[in-house]
Structure formats: C-alpha cells, structure tokens
C-alpha cells in the first residue's frame, strides 16, 4: 500500500520509479484498486473486522511457526526435548511458542466469529456461494493444520490425539485399515508419522494463504455484504473507499484484539492447553482422558454421540460438509437476519446449540452429558435439513430498504 498520496484527491503521487514499474507490472494500480479505492458499503459494523483479523493472525502463525521450526526436531527421541529447549534455552523461545500456541486458539475464535457473522447476515447467498465455499475450505485446512501442529510437541495428548484421529479412518469399510497404516507409515503412530506431520504442518498454512487469495478475489468481485444485506452496487452513495475508512477501523479492531491475545500470551499462556501434554508421549499408556483442543470440541461431541463407529465418523464430517449446501438449504431471497424475524431466532438457537455441543465434547460421554450431546447433535442437523428449508419458504420477511442511504435520508427529512 503506497502511503504517499495527494491529500486533495487521495490518488497516489506521481513517482517515477513507481510509474515505470506500474506501466510494466501494474501491482501499484492493483493495490490501489483493491486496498484504497475498493468501494465498501458504508454501514459495515464491527463484525466485519474479523476477516482482516483472521488474515493477520495467519501471518502471525506463519512467522512464529517458521521461527519455532528453526529449533524444533521432528524425531520421536528429540521432539519433546526440543520443544522444552525452545521454552528454556532459546532466547525468547517461550514467547514465540506461546504466541504460536495461543495464536491457534485466537485464529479459530476469530474465524468462528467470522463464520457466524456470515450466517447472521446471509453472506453465503448468491452471488457469494463460492466465497462461502472457499471460506469452508480454509476452515477445513485450518483444522488439519492445527491437528498436525498439536502432534509436534510429542506430549501425551499429542500422541493419543494423533492415534484417535488417525484411527477415525479405520471406520471406512474394507480399505480403512490399509489407509490408517498408510497414514502412519507403520503400524502405530511413530517416527514416520511425526516426520510427515511436520512436513504437512509446514506446508498447509501456505496452501491456506493461496485459498485466502482466492477468497479475496471472490469477495472483491461482488463486494462485501453488509448488515442490511441489500445490494449496494446500484446506489453510488452507499459505498465509501476502503482507505481510510476501513483501514482505520480494521487497525483499531486489531489493537483491541492484540490486547486480548497478549493478555493470554503473557498472563495465561496455558489457559487453552492440556497439562498432560507436558508429559512426554508414552505409547504404552493412554492418559485417563482424551480431549481435543476447544475449537474441535463440537465436532468431537457429534462423533461421540453416535454409538456406531462408521455413522459417528460420517456425522462428524457431515457436520462440516452440510455447510457447503447452506446456500441451497436456505432459499430465502433476503440475506440479513435483521429482516427475517424467524430465522433470526433460529440463528441464536443454533449458536447456543454449537456452544452446548462444545460443552458436551469436553465431558465424559455418559449420563446426562451424553444425552445432552445427542440432543444437540440431532438439533444441529435438524436446523439445516428441516428448519432452514421450511422457514426460508414460509417466513414473511420485513420490507427491505431501497438503499443504505434511504432510511437515513428519510429521518433527516423528518
């Protein structure tokens, strides 16, 4: 982003070198177009901060990860010790590791808020279906990356988490067992597994960067959705340039976010972690309880609430894949829940349902928690397969405003 600009017009100042390059490779025109002029609805609220936040956290994860990798050893005999060496001996190693560990939790927090924002304001609806799909691909890649990363410190939870998750694939009929052996590169989670996990953990974040680029291309093709969910292209008064209005707002949001993130890194660095993962992996002894990181708990709850192995695995993956069908399950023409009285209630119930699933995923799967987990799982699918299609057919939405300016102008006249 070029900072030198004509204060009167906001257009970039003429600079010989910039012009020479731009004439041959129009990166400056491109950046000016996408990051300065980019017409943005003028009514975006703070829920629209989370996309750029997610991008920044991704960069933080890659940077901190690269520095961790300089001191990490992907070998069963050295992995745990190398992480402890990062914590004790490497200059600021503790800081870099805590940034990375808590960064993963922050990343999911930000992305989940980003997704629920999309659910509330109908951002998955035409013409943004592929934008939504690309976002879901990012979510899946993030889950894979976080799972692989969690194995690297080679603590008890790393080892047994890896064992349990890879064993999910054994549910596949006929080829399940060979697939698991292939994933492991052996007959249990062992050194070959750790090596390939490190390789992939290093690779996937860069794949995520690529998909994020596509996500942004799709976004900028039709522009951002907005709290009213109406098309803003028709009325030029509905848009303002991205810079300075949203750059400043994003920076402010970043400041608030960094305070929260830093509070965890410096004052509660192991808040999201499991103490057993500071015990070195022991292939002969499973810890008394296996729980995944918090951001995977709802899916874990769905897995455990179904008594059949194969059906449980299908339900767990189905819980993510059903999100791909959302643009067609919800056929209402109105995007924003602001104008959909019934969908708005469904949204909040669904949010609570996901939190309940997360809670259930952290409990022992027996008695009341198991029952609650089962009900919440049933409701999760009921929401998508039954309630949404029906509501989007029969609900009577409130009248939409012509443009963003209309309601404002009306009150001004009054």
């Amino acid at each position, binding site marked *: 982003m070029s900072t030198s600009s004509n204060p009167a017009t906001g257009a970039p100042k003429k600079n010989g070198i910039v012009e020479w390059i731009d004439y041959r490779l129009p990166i400056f025109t491109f950046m000016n177009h996408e990051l300065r002029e980019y017409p943005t609805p003028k009514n975006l609220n703070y829920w629209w901060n989370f996309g750029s936040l997610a991008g920044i956290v991704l960069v933080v994860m890659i940077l*901190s990860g690269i520095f961790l990798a*300089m001191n990490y050893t992907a070998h069963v005999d050295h992995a745990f010790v190398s992480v402890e*060496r990062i914590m004790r*001996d490497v*200059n*600021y190693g503790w800081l870099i590791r805590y940034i990375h560990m808590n960064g993963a939790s922050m990343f999911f927090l930000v992305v989940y808020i980003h997704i629920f924002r999309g659910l509330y304001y109908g951002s998955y609806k035409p013409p943004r279906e592929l934008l939504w799909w690309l976002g879901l691909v990012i979510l899946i890649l993030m889950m894979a990356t976080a799972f692989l990363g969690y194995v690297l410190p080679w603590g008890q939870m790393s080892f047994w988490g890896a064992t349990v998750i890879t064993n999910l694939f054994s549910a596949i009929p006929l080829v399940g067992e060979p697939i698991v052996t292939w994933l492991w590169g052996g007959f249990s989670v062992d050194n070959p597994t750790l090596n390939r996990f490190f390789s992939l953990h290093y690779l996937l974040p860069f794949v995520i960067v690529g998909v994020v680029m596509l996500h942004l291309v799709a976004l900028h093709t039709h522009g951002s959705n907005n709290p009213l969910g109406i098309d803003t292209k028709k009325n030029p008064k509905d848009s303002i340039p991205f810079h300075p209005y949203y750059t400043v707002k994003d*920076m402010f949001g970043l400041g608030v976010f960094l305070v929260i993130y830093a509070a965890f890194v410096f004052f509660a660095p192991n808040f999201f972690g499991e103490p057993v993962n500071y015990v070195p992996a022991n292939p002969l002894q499973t810890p008394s309880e296996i729980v995944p990181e918090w951001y995977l708990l709802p899916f874990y709850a769905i897995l455990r609430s179904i008594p059949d192995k194969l059906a449980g695995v299908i339900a767990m993956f189905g819980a993510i894949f059903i999100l791909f069908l959302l643009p067609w399950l919800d056929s209402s023409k109105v995007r924003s829940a602001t104008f959909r009285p019934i969908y708005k209630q469904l949204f909040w119930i669904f949010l609570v349902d996901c939190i309940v699933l997360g809670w259930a995923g952290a409990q022992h799967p027996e008695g009341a928690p198991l029952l609650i987990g089962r009900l919440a799982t049933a409701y999760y699918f009921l929401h998508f397969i039954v309630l949404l299609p029906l509501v989007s057919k029969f609900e009577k939405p409130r009248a939409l405003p012509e443009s963003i300016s209309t309601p404002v102008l009306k009150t001004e006249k009054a």
Partner: protein
Amino acid sequence: MSESAHASATHGQPGHGEGETRRDFLALAATAFAGAGAACALWPFIDSMNPAADTLALSTTDVDISPIAEGMRITVKWRGKPVFIDHRNKEQIDQARSVNLSELPDPAKDEDRAQKAEWLVMVGVCTHLGCIPNGQKQGEPRGDFGGWFCPCHGSHYDTSGRIRRGPAPRNLDVPPYKFTTDTTVSIG
C-alpha cells in the same frame, strides 16, 4: 459529518499550510507508534536466532594434555570448531621466536601467542575463508614455514600459527584459555 470535520481541521488552525493538518499529525504519530511497536515485536524473533543458553553453556572445553608428547599435535573441538594444540619442540620455538617482526603480514610476537612456550593453542580455522589448514597429522604438508598449510587457497602459516604467505589476512586466532593444572588446559 465527515465533510465538516475535515473542513474544521484544515481551516481551523491558522499558521498551518496546505496539507499540514491535525489529521496529518495524528496519522504520522500513529504510524510512528505502530512502527516502533512492530520493531520492538521483531526483536524477540531476531534474538531467538542468536546462540541459545545451552549452546553458550557448551562454550568451555577442558583438555588433558599429559598424553601429548613433544612434537605432537592434537585437535580438539571447542564450540563446534577445531582447536589445534601443538606441543612444540625447541627447534620450532626458536624458529618462531627468531623471525624479524617486519617480515610478518600480521606482526605478532610468539611470546604473546603462547602462554607457555612449548604449548601453542589456536583455533584451527584459516582466517581466509574458513578451511582447516593441514599439518596436524604426520605426513601432511606443513607449508614453506614448517607450521600449517591451508589447501583451499594456499595460505602458509609458521610454527607460531602466523600467516606468512597466501591470501589469509590474519594469523590463526588464539582462543581464551588457561592452564587449570600443569596437565589440563581449559579453553573458552
């Protein structure tokens, strides 16, 4: 709303020329602040690439020199680098001490390079581009000055480890060391 705010910022301050508004000042101050913060945040990452505490802890090596007979040279490892320990004989010491300092590219007295005349302790890394000079083992070429010869680009060192001919700019470095007993030398 933003129109009027902008207008007052431009016109409300007498004495400020075109473009020098309170807003410009705020933008500059905020950018400078963020820049300073980013630079500070960068430091831990850069510093993490410096030697870690355990690496620094490896930085002394004790060597028992009692088995080294006169005329023998041995190599030990200190901080991952070879250190040459040479038990010099009378002839080699005399050779090193009789040289006229003005003949040397990097003048240094042998007395200043060896704490005890018969023991020469040096980092065995050529000061040209880091190869290990030959001469430690029996039968290896020792160059034209009876000390060491670097095969990479032909640097000749004398019996005090001083550069005499070839591209290397400096004498072989003498590491910090002390004799903790008559038969033990502690390097580092």
